[in-house]
C-alpha cells in the first residue's frame, strides 16, 4: 500500500540526506542517533496488543544526549501512527513506550535497568558501550566517523518483538 507524499516524509528524506552528506559525526551525533532510533522503529513489529492504537510511544531516559535530537526531529508519524515523545526516569513507568533510548554511563546501573526491562515488548536502543551485551537490543556506536550498530537478536525475540531481517544485514554484529 503506497501513500501520498507528505511534507513529513519530505522532511525525513531531507534529513536522511543530511546524514549522508554531513560534515562530522561528532557534532551531529545526537541528531543522527535520534534518526537511527526512529528508523529502527520503522523496521520493528510489535506484538499486536502493543501495536494497536494510533500513536507510537518513543521514550528516552533523562540524561540521554539523544533526547535533544529526538526533541528536534520533525518526524511526527511512522506509518499511520503519530509519534509521542516522552522523557522517563529509570526505573520508572515505561507503559506506553514502544521504543526506549537508554543512555547511562554506569555499567552496573545500566545492567540493572535493562534487567528490569527484560521481556517487555519495548525496543531498547542505547549508545553505551557493550549495551547489547548487558541486555540491550540495538547498540549504536561510532566507527570511522559513521554510526554503526550491533543487534541482540535473542533479546529482541525474547521480548516478543520482530525485527526486519534487513537490519541484521546492516548490523556490524548480531547476537543470538
Amino acid at each position, binding site marked *: *500500500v*503506497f*501513500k501520498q*507524499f*507528505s511534507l*513529513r*516524509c*519530505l522532511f*525525513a*528524506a531531507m534529513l*536522511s*540526506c543530511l*546524514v*549522508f552528506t554531513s560534515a562530522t559525526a561528532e557534532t551531529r551525533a545526537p541528531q543522527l542517533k535520534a534518526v*537511527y532510533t526512529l*528508523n529502527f522503529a*520503522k*523496521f520493528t513489529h510489535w506484538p499486536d496488543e502493543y501495536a494497536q492504537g494510533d500513536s507510537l510511544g518513543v521514550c528516552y531516559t533523562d540524561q540521554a544526549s539523544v533526547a535533544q535530537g529526538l526533541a528536534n526531529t520533525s518526524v511526527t508519524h*511512522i*506509518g*499511520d501512527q503519530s509519534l509521542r515523545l516522552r522523557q522517563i526516569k529509570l526505573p520508572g513507568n515505561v507503559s506506553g513506550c514502544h521504543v526506549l533510548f537508554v543512555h547511562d554511563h554506569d555499567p552496573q546501573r545500566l545492567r540493572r535497568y535493562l534487567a528490569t526491562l527484560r521481556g517487555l515488548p519495548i525496543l531498547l536502543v542505547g549508545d553505551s558501550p557493550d549495551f547489547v551485551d548487558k541486555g540491550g537490543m540495538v547498540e549504536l556506536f561510532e566507527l570511522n566517523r559513521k554510526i554503526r550498530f550491533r543487534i541482540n537478536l535473542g533479546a529482541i525475540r525474547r521480548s516478543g518483538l520482530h525485527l*526486519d531481517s*534487513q*537490519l541484521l*544485514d*546492516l548490523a556490524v554484529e548480531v547476537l543470538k
Partner: protein
Amino acid sequence: MSRSIPGLSIRVKLALAFLGSMLLVLGVTAGSLVYLDIRALEQSQQQRLEPLSRLLARQSQASLVFGEPASAEENLKALGVQPEIVAAFIYTPDGAVFAQYPRSEGAGSGGGRFMQSMQDQLTELPVAGRMSLHDGYSHYLAPIILQGERIGTIHLVDDRRFVQTRLQEYLQVSGLVVALAIIIAVFLALGVSAALTRPILRLSSVMEDVSSSRDFSLRATPSSRDEIGDLARGFNEMLSEVETREQALSNYNQELEAEVRNRTHELETAKTAAEVASETKSRFLANMSHEIRTPLNGILGMANIGYRDTPDGEARTGFSHIITSGNHLLGLINDVLDLARIEAGKLVIENKPFHLLDPVKNAIDLVAEFARQKELDIRTRFEEADNFWVLGDPLRIQQVLVNLLGNAIKFTEQGYVEVSVVIADSMTRFSIRDTGIGIRKEDLPRMFSSFEQADTSTTRKYGGSGLGLTISRNLAELMGGTIDVVSEQGRGSEFVLAVPLEATVCSEESRPDKGRETDGPRLDGLNILVAEDVEINQLILEDLLSVEGARCHFVNDGKQAVERVKSMAGDDFDVVLMDIQMPVMDGLEATRLINDIHPSLPVIGLTAHALDSERQRCFDVGMRDHVTKPVDVDVLVRSILRHTSNKPL
C-alpha cells in the same frame, strides 16, 4: 502484369486466386499470432519485472534508510541470475543514484555511458510502477515505500533484445510454416484448379474435336452435377440439335441429289428421245427430198429436153413454165432441207481458197434472167475486190447472195439493184441495195425469223417460203459473220452480209474453167459408163451428155456396172457416173469393187440425197465427186471435166 492476367488460363487464375486467399489468411493469422505473442511477451515481461522490483525495493528499504548502498548493491547482485535484466538502479527520494547494478566499478567507460543513458530514463519520480520502452530496452520504474513513506525509487532495465530474439524466432518459425504452407498450397491449388478445370478442358477438347472433324455425333461427358456439368449437358443438347439439323440437311441434300439424278435421267431420256426424233426427222427429210427430187429430176430433165427440142410456140412456153415451177419447187425443197440441217447443227462450212468475186458473179448470173424479166438493172461496184483470193465457203456465200439478190429483185418494181463488195480489215462486206418497197421499221426485228415476211399480204403478193432470210442469217453466223439491214419504207433496202474471210494466195486449180462453158460440145469424144436404174433418168442423162459430145453406155445396177468394167479392154471408159440407190447392188458397193479393179477410173456419184452425210459416204467408198439430182448440166459437165482433165481429148 495486370494486363497479362486475362491471358492466363483458368487453371492458373484459379490457382492464383486460391493461393492468394490462402496467403492472405496465412499472413493475417501469422501476423496476428506474432503480434499477440509479442504483446503477451511484453505483458509477461511486466509481470516478471513488477514482483522483482517489489522484492528488490523491499530488500533495499533498510539500506536506503540507513544509507548503506553497498548492502543495496549486494541485493541487486541477485539479478545476475536474470540475464535479460541488463541494469538496475535504486535512487534516493531526490533522484540521485543510491545503488546500481552492475556495480559502477564493474562497468568500463562505455559501460558508464550506457548506465548514464539508462539513468536518463528517470524523467520523473514514479508514483506507482510504470513500464516504458526506449531504444530497445524496457524500463520499469517503481517507488520504494516504507511505512507509507517514499524512501526511494527502483529502476530495472530489461533488454528487449530478448524480445527481439523471441520475435526473430517467431518470425523464423512462422516463416518456415508459411513457406511450408505455400508449398502445400501451391500443390493444393494446382490440384484443386486442375480438378476444377479438367472438365472444362475436356469440354473444350470435345469442342475442338467437333469443330475440326465436323463429327456432330461426338458428346461431352458431364462429369459433375455443377455448372460445368450443366455446360457440358447444354453443349451436348446443342450438338444433338446441330446433328439433327445436319442429318435433316444431309437427307434433304440426298433427296435433292436423287431428284437431280432423276431429273437428269429424265432429261437424258428426253434428250435421247429428242435426238432420236431429230434423227428421224432428218432421215425423213432426206428421204422426202430424195423421193421428191427423183420425180422432179425426171420432170425437169424432160421439160428441158422438150424446151430445147421444141420450136417457139405455145408448147415451148409450156415447157418454160414447167421448168420455172420445177426450179421453184426445187429451191423450196433445198431451203427446207438447209434449214433442217442448220437446226440440227449438221451443216458444215467449208474453208477453201476461192476468188472473192466468183460467188458474187455466179449469184448475179443465177438471178440475171429474173432481173431481165422485171427490166431491172443490176449494177456492180467491186473494183477494189477484183482479183482477190480468200479462204471460205464460196457456195454458202453464193447461196446467201442469191437469196438477198432474189429478194431485192422480187420486191423492186423499178429502178435498180446494186451489188458492192468492200474489204474492211478482216471483214468482207457484201452489200445488196435496191430501190424497192422497203421495210417498215416495226417489221425489221421479225425479218430474220423463220417463215416471216414483212407481212402476210407480202406472201400473197410476192410468194416465197419465208425461209430465205432465216437461212441466210444462219449461214452468215455459221461463217462467223452477220447480216444487217438498213431500210426505209418506199425508198428501198440495203442488206449487208459481213463475213470474216482470210486472204490467201491464188490457186488456179480450184478456179472453175469458165471459159469453155458456153462453147459447143464440152465432152466431145468421152466414153461414159452410166449406172442408173430409172429409165427416165437414163433418157435425160443420155440427152444431156450426148449434146455435149459424150458417148453413154447404160447399165441398170451396180453389179452390171462392175461386170462392164471388169470386161472392158484398155480405156473403154473415161469416167463412171454412178447412181447410189439401185437394185441388186447399190452404187457404194459397186464403186468399192470398181476401185479395186481399176483404181484410175474416176467414179462420180449421182444421187437425189442432198445431205452432207450422204456426200461423205460417197467419198468414203472412193468416189471422186458427187453431183445431186436433179442434175444441173453445167455442174455435171464441170465435174466430169475436172476428173478427166488428165486425158487427151
